[in-house]
Structures are given as structure tokens and as C-alpha cells.
């Protein structure tokens, strides 16, 4: 059984947000509900201001604090390494949102930040929060995996495109989107990443490209002190840094 993980090379990442929109398209997310967000940080000032960014999916932790706190066992860890939310069990209590050290969980509030509310344009029916014409084909939707248009009142998050990766041939070390045979099983954000800043593969397979990159380019995990042990690794390279968790902004008089 594979243990899927992702490597993000910050030296290559251009902060374009194609991962964000590809994810929204693939997973029928609401505007601004960025399962795969890119966070921007500004420090310093003219003429040496520093702008950095950090793409942030769910870390699919080995030891996920969200799973530990979920009172209904809605959020769970699969045998192949993904952290999923079973929307049939989720009661929207948001404990997991507080427990997650990475802020990657979402709850669609009544009042949408992007107005007018697109859910009113495409009202939902039978367990769907909304029903846009460009939604995922019905046969791919899977509530137990938290895949597809979500019901109302549940927490959602990046599922590593589980409807794609779960169909990959067994024993595949890496899901390489440049391989036509593996492309459709690769997470949307990895498929589209133009500078190839993303890699997806089996962390338990010593021959995988992701393992090689983590070793050669000294992959790091965010907030390792929490003990969550993310399965998303970052390569910081020489020309990239992991930004401070918050920007420093001069106080206004």
C-alpha cells in the first residue's frame, strides 16, 4: 500500500495560484474557498521590501490532530495516507478546524465573502449545498471521501483529489502528470503546476521521486514541533524561504 505524499519546491513556485483554481474547478469549491491556497507575506519596505509566498494544501499528517478531535469519526486517515472527511458523518462542529495547526479546513458560512452568493444562482438540492452546471460528474462524487459538491453544514478540505489518486495502479512510485497513463490519477494541483513545483508520490517507496527530492534537497515539514508529521514536504532551495507565519507591518500613526 502506498503512502501518498506531496513535495512542493518553493524555489520553482511562482505564486500564480493555478493550483488554487485547478483545485476549485476539480473539486467544485466556492469562490475564495481555497482548499489549495497560496499565502502571500510582505516584510520590509521600499526599496528592499520582501514578498514571499507559500502554497498550502492539507498536510495529510501522519499523526493528524483533526482526526484525534473528531467526535463522530467523520475525519479519518486512509490506509494509503490521505486524511479525508466523511460528509455522511460530519456534523460541522468545527473542532477539527481549531485542532488543525495548518488552517486548511473550511466551513461554508451562511454569508459568503464573495458577493453575490453564487449558491443562490445555482441552488442546491438533495444534499448538495449548491448545484453549478460545471460540477463534477455525479458518478465521481463520493461523500465518504469528501469528494465533489458538498452537503450543507459540513467541514471540507483538500482530499489529495482522492477520486483521482485512489484509482492509480497499485505499486506506482510517483504519479507523474507528464505520463499520459498516470495523468488522470494525479491531483489537479500537481497536474497543472506550470513550473513543476509539485511532485506527488509514495513516501514509503525508496525509489520514488518524492523520496529522492526530500533527501537531495533537504525537504522540510511545516511546524514539525507539533508532532503532526505532515506528508507534504517543502523544498526551500537557495532562492526561496518559508515565510514567517505572519507579516511584519509598520504601525500606522
Amino acid at each position, binding site marked *: *500500500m502506498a503512502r501518498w505524499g506531496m513535495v512542493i519546491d518553493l*524555489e*520553482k513556485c*511562482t505564486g*500564480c495560484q*493555478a493550483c*488554487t*483554481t*485547478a483545485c476549485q*474547478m*476539480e473539486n467544485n469549491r466556492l*469562490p*475564495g474557498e481555497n482548499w489549495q491556497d497560496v499565502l*502571500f507575506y510582505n516584510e*520590509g*519596505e*521600499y*526599496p528592499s*521590501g*520582501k*514578498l514571499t*509566498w507559500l502554497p498550502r494544501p492539507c498536510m495529510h499528517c501522519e499523526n*493528524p490532530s483533526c482526526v*484525534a478531535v473528531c467526535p*463522530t*469519526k467523520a475525519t*479519518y*486517515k*486512509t*490506509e*494509503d495516507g490521505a486524511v479525508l472527511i466523511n*460528509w*455522511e458523518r460530519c456534523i460541522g*462542529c468545527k*473542532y477539527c478546524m481549531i485542532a488543525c495547526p495548518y488552517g486548511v479546513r473550511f466551513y461554508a458560512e451562511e454569508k459568503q*465573502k*464573495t458577493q*453575490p452568493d453564487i449558491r443562490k*444562482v445555482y441552488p442546491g438540492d*438533495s*444534499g448538495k449545498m449548491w448545484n*453549478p452546471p*460545471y460540477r463534477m*460528474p*455525479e*458518478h465521481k462524487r463520493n*461523500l*465518504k*471521501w469528501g469528494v465533489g459538491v458538498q452537503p450543507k453544514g459540513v467541514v471540507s478540505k483538500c482530499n489529495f483529489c482522492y477520486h483521482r489518486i*485512489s*484509482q492509480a495502479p497499485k505499486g506506482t512510485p510517483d504519479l507523474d*502528470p*507528464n505520463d499520459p497513463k498516470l495523468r488522470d490519477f494525479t491531483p489537479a494541483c500537481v*497536474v*497543472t503546476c506550470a*513550473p513543476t513545483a509539485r511532485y506527488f508520490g509514495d513516501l514509503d517507496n525508496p525509489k520514488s521521486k518524492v523520496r529522492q527530492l526530500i533527501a537531495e534537497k533537504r525537504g522540510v515539514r511545516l511546524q514539525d514541533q507539533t508532532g503532526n508529521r505532515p506528508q507534504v514536504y517543502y523544498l526551500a532551495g537557495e*532562492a526561496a524561504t518559508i515565510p514567517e507565519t505572519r507579516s511584519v*507591518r*509598520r504601525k*500606522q500613526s
Partner: protein
Amino acid sequence: MSEPRQMNRRDFLKSSAVAGVAVTGGGALVTSMGTGAAEAETRAMPPLETKIVKSVCHQCPARCGIDVYVTDGKVHAIYGTLDHPISNGKLCPKGHLGAYILYDPDRFKGPMMRTNSKKGRDEDPKFKPISWDEALAAIASRLNALREKGEQHRFAIVHGRGWGASDAGLLGDFGKLYGTPNGALGHSSICSDGSKKAKAALDGNYNYNAYDYRNTNYLLNFGAAFLEAYRPYNNNMQVWGHIRTKSPKTKVTVVDVRVTTTGAAADHLLLVKPGTDGALALAIAHVILAEGLWDRKFVGDFVDGVNHFKAGETLEPGTFKEKWTLGLIEWWNTELKNRTPAWAAEITSVTERDIVAVAREFGVTRPAMAIFERGPTTHTNGLYNGMAIHALNALVGSMYAVGGLMNQMGVPYGKLPVKADEFMDDLARAAAERKMPRLDRVKTKEVPLASNNIQGIAQSIVEEKPYQLDTLMFYLTNPIFSTPNAKQWEEALKKVFVIETSPFPSETSVFADIVVPDHTYLERWQDTPTYPFQGWPMTGLRVPAVKPLHDTKAFGDTLIEIGKRIKGPMGEHYKKLGNVENVLRHLAKGFEANPGDNGVNSFDTWVEKGVWYKKPYLYRQIAGEFYEWDGTDYRRPMSNQEVKSKLFPTESGRFELKSSYLGHYGEFISERLGIPPTRVGFPQWLPPKYTGSGDLHFITPKTAMHAEGRSANLPHAVALYQPVSGGRNEMFLEIHPETARQRGIRNGDRVRISNELGAITARAHVYPATRPDTVVLPFGFGHWAHGRWASSRKTGNGCEIIPNVSEPVSGLASYYTVKVKVEKA
């Protein structure tokens, strides 16, 4: 699918309180729910067949090949096409949003006629749906009536992004057959004509360059948003991933007036004062010469082999033997000798230390290239800024070299089934002989050298000069929103009969008398020959992914249908031309004799693959010699005459550092720009003339989400528009803390941005990395009639306060010369 649950959060908290359930803390709780196969069995729905249609994106000029995923007649995903040379399976952030454009709930549903004769921003046009037959008949009868009076010039078509022979490419013949000089009034003068003209002046090619980025080792980028908006954006990012991790790593210096992701990702970001890029480029050239770093194989050398370039000292022309350049010593003597880094530091505000460092890096690294776009060129001195930058490519020998610049080759299309010339009637011929001036006054004494002047059309209409216009048709452009002094169009469009073809509501459509809506790009046939890319020819094909959602028609077909209804031979011509699909079938016949590298040799294979292309590029400069591809390598030496006709079509057949083209217009340039006629040919420092009554430079750049005006009504795009400054759902004015403090502005305050043209408002984002003399408000929001999301943003449209001033030679609108006043609203 079962209903998800019965219990909500409140219920749960109640029951857990009663039962005293403790929330598990710490330690992993791994619950296996099974994977893959087991889960798949539980699915109720049978899988539906998914069809992948090959098409071409439409959200910037890049022409990325896309795979459109269609299931059950609905588009639900768009990815880059894996075997497409531009997209290579990848997309930019806009590309994925194509289905949202297709299903935009605010789209026009079919042709409409205005019933409210009063026009104004706040006047409801009171559109009444009409049939296509009625719409086309109404337009044709208007055009026939003008023709009968011999007043065809009073009909004009203004177009934006032209894609190929099947849309904008049809306009030339339409104008000729109808008999108007205004059949194809383009938008390039609000686009990038500045860079084209700068290149034409020096190397003779009036075009954007193709680039061999993957093999360059130094990229010196002046004001081209390489990682945000510079085409082909998607491929630029693919290149970026490569050049920043290859060995040796490509070094990148970005010169811009604001902090961009491009600048932040580069090795150096030099924040210049707006409009002074040319001074920086000249100082770099000065250092390259003074320190002897130029490419001797391309440029040539001093006869005695010793470097005699010394700051402030003139040289005898005979002392230097030039190879592929012309006028180097004259350029040095008249301009460069005093353009020292210390001089440029004063003008640009970049330190002398940084200028010298970048000049040395650029000068000693090979291959190196200097690229530029609107940052330096949308200024009153834009042509000369561009020339100063492009001249660097000659000094480091990057023209046609590995890791350098090329020019794009054309596509060997088949011929159309009918020749327009054979269908011209007496009216068309008489009109051709009469040589009426163009409505935009291009090729008149006023605008003699530009290709287009879309930003001048509103004035032409308002002042009825050169004549009174009757009917104006728009295709893929909305100048009432996007040109400088945009509001003047509101007066202009009251005076003419307006035909709008946009699939979406637009500011233009508020003034439209008739709307004949286009398909969106996922519904239409269209050819898309590449923008300059890697030199070798390529053309993609848009194939309808779904049947049109509404009662719309592709613009090319609308034009052909109007043509069929024009009396006389013109009508016959269009009946024989048939429709856009027929045009495309004839274009594809050219592939029979020139099969593409991917096997495309017919219309059907073009549809299947979505793109025809044929590598390699045919020309290469190696160590100062030019070679043509001989079938296996670049080995056939080219004569000077061949280089002149194919690569440097200047009068000298060389890269002219003293432009003979500009030399012919000395008097005009002298009059408009105040340069002595003897000096007009040289790349040189010309101070920018700032416009607008204010004290802060006002920059309105494009961000990555800006899809040429078509993403502003996508809520998903709106929520991501200006990530650098936190602009989500709203566009902020970036302002330096000190600048804000002096004006009593706090972060998040609503501010009024004004000059003599008027005022707009926006919210301020106090951003310390901004230049203190510059405020930045990205272009794209500020719509007032473009659909529910676009029109409900709380940011003004910068174009309403940008005075309509253009660089006189290229004709490019000077968007970035404007100054404004900013105060708390």
C-alpha cells in the same frame, strides 16, 4: 446518494453533554475506511462517458492548447493539453476557469434590439429580444443604405484580440468589399505597439520577438510581468521552473516600478521611477562598452583591438569596425558617452552600485537577453525607452543566438475558396480610389506612423473629424472601459448606431443599439496562429466543446452572414465563403503539403490534435555568423543579402543603433518629441512627460487573474485577483506608509484618487514595499455594466482618470505617465 446526516452541531453538543462524551485528545486515531476498489463498489451512479475536446484557451493571447472535459453535455474541467508545445499539459490560474465563462449566468441569451432611444450610463437600453434574421437584416439594411449613398466610410469595425483568419482575419476583406477604410480598426495601440515599434526601428522587424528562454543564462527584464501577465504566461512559468533549477542557473534581474511576484522571484528587483527605464538601459550599455564587455563577434571591435570607450570621450568613427550593428561609435559620441551609472542613478533612483552590478552581470554572462514590454513603453518616451533596452540585445550578441531572440515564422495556410478582389463592385472600387482617411486618423499627418489609434476614436466621433460616423461595430473590445479617458466614449457612443457582439454584458452594450452576441470560446470554431513563441510556425484550433448554450453566433459567422446580405457581388462573395468552418477547412488544406510534427495534415487531424506545428526554427546566429537550417543542423551559411531580407530587414541589413527608419521622420519626431532631427535615430534618454494634475504616479498593471476583461465577472477569479496585497473580492490601492501618513490615510481607508479628469475611489492597502512616489491600482475592477460580480466591486476604473496621451511614433497609449492626487474619501 443517501442524505448525509440527521444530526447537526447543536444536536450533537446536546447529546454529548448528556452522555459525557469526551473528545479524544492527542494521539493518532486512524480509522481505516478502506480505499479505492471497495469504495467504488458502493457508488450508485453508473460512470458516464467523458469526452475530451481539444481546443485553445481564450483568456490571454498565449493560445494554450486545452483539454476540455465534457460529460453528459456539460464542461466540468479544463486542463492543459499534454502534447501541445505551449501548454505541455499545464495551465495558468485563468485557464481552469473557462467553464465558468461558458456558464456565466449573466451572458446574453440571444440577439437584442434597443428600444430606449436615450443613451447614457444610467439609461436602461430596454433591450427587446429579436431573431437572428431580424438582427442581421437590420444591420444589413443599414449598411446597404450607407452604400447606396456612397458613404461606406461612415461604417467602422473596432476589434480587440484577433485570433486568426477566421475572425479578425476576415475584417480586411470585409472592409475592402464594402468600401470602408474602417473595416479593421485594431486595438494594438492600447496593447503593445511600443515594443514592436522599438524593435522595428532597430532590427527592422515590426513584431514581438520569439525567445529561446530555456537556454539563456541571464534574463534582464524591464517591465514585463513574466510571472503574471506577459504572454505566453503559462509557458513562461514552465520556463521559470527550468531556468531557475538548471545548471548553470539563469540569473534574473527585474526592473519595475512596483513589487510583483516576477520581481520577488528574481535575483534582483530594481524599483525605478516610472518612465525612466531607458536611462537605466543606457547606463548598462555605457558600462558594457566602457568595461569592454560587448560581444565582439556580433558587434565588431576596435581596429587595434584595444578598448577606447572612456566615459565622456568621443571617438573617431573609423577606429571601430562594426560587424552586424550600424552606428555604434556615433551612438556613443552623441548619447552613450555621458550616460554613466551615476547619471542614471539620479534619474531612476536606482543606486549607482546596483546599476554597475547588474550591467557587469549582464555583460559577462552569455547567453543573455533583455526583454521589455509595457512597463517602459506606455510612456511618452516609450519608444526610446524600448530602443535603449533592445539595443542591449545587440551589444551582448543575442539576436538569433542560442538563448536569445528570434522572430516568429508564419503558418502555411491554404487559400480561401474565393478571392475578395474578384468581387469588388464599382462602389468598392470608387471607395478605394477616394482614399478616405481612417476614422482613427492613422496614416494621416496626425498619426502617421502608428498601426492603430483606438484611443483616438471617441474623439473622432465626438468632433466628427475626419467625418461623421454612422455605424460602429465592436468585436472583443470594450474601449469605453479600457482606453485612457474612457468616459469620452460615453459621449461618442450616443452619436452613432452601435453594434455590440460581446457574449456578455459590457459597458459598450449599455450604449448598443443592437446586440448580436458571440459564442464563448468553448462553443466556437476558430483558428489561432501563435503569438511569437519559439519562432517555428504553429496554429491551434478551437473546436466547440459543447453546443451553444444560448442563441448566439460566432463573430466570424455573424460577419459572413451580414456580408451575404449586402447587395451586389459582395453578397455573392460571402455566399461562396459559406461559414467559418468552411474557411477553416480551406486553411487546413495548406497542411497537406506541410504536415505538422504531430502528424496533422488535414482538417480532421487538426481537430483531433488541436494544433499544427512544425519545428525547427530555420535561422541561427553562431559567433557572429548566420546559418540556415539545412535539414539536420544550422550549417548553411547565409549571405548578407539573405540576412537582410529574412532577419534584419533594415536599410543596412544590420541591427541599426542609428535607425534609418526613424531618420526618415526626423521632422515629425522633432516636432512631437523635441529631439533634433539629426538625433532621432539613436536609442537615447528622453525625459517622460508626466500627465495628470497630481503628485503621485498612478500605475494600473494587469494581475495574473486578469483575463483581458473577461474574468471580472467570475466570482472565483474575483476572489483571487490581487493576492500580493490581499486583494480578495476587492482591488486595493497600494500606497507606501509614509505617503499614506502624510495624507492621513490608514490601512483599509477608502480613498479618493483624482486629477483634472475626475475622481475614482478605492480602498487603500498600506504596503511598505511600494515606492513612496507611486500608487498602484491593478486594472480589471471598476466595471459598471459587466455582470453581477463585476459590477458590484467597490473599486473605481483607473482608465477614467488617465489622460489620453500617446507616444507619437508607435501610437501606444501612455497609460503610466499619469499622476494623481490621493486623499481620504
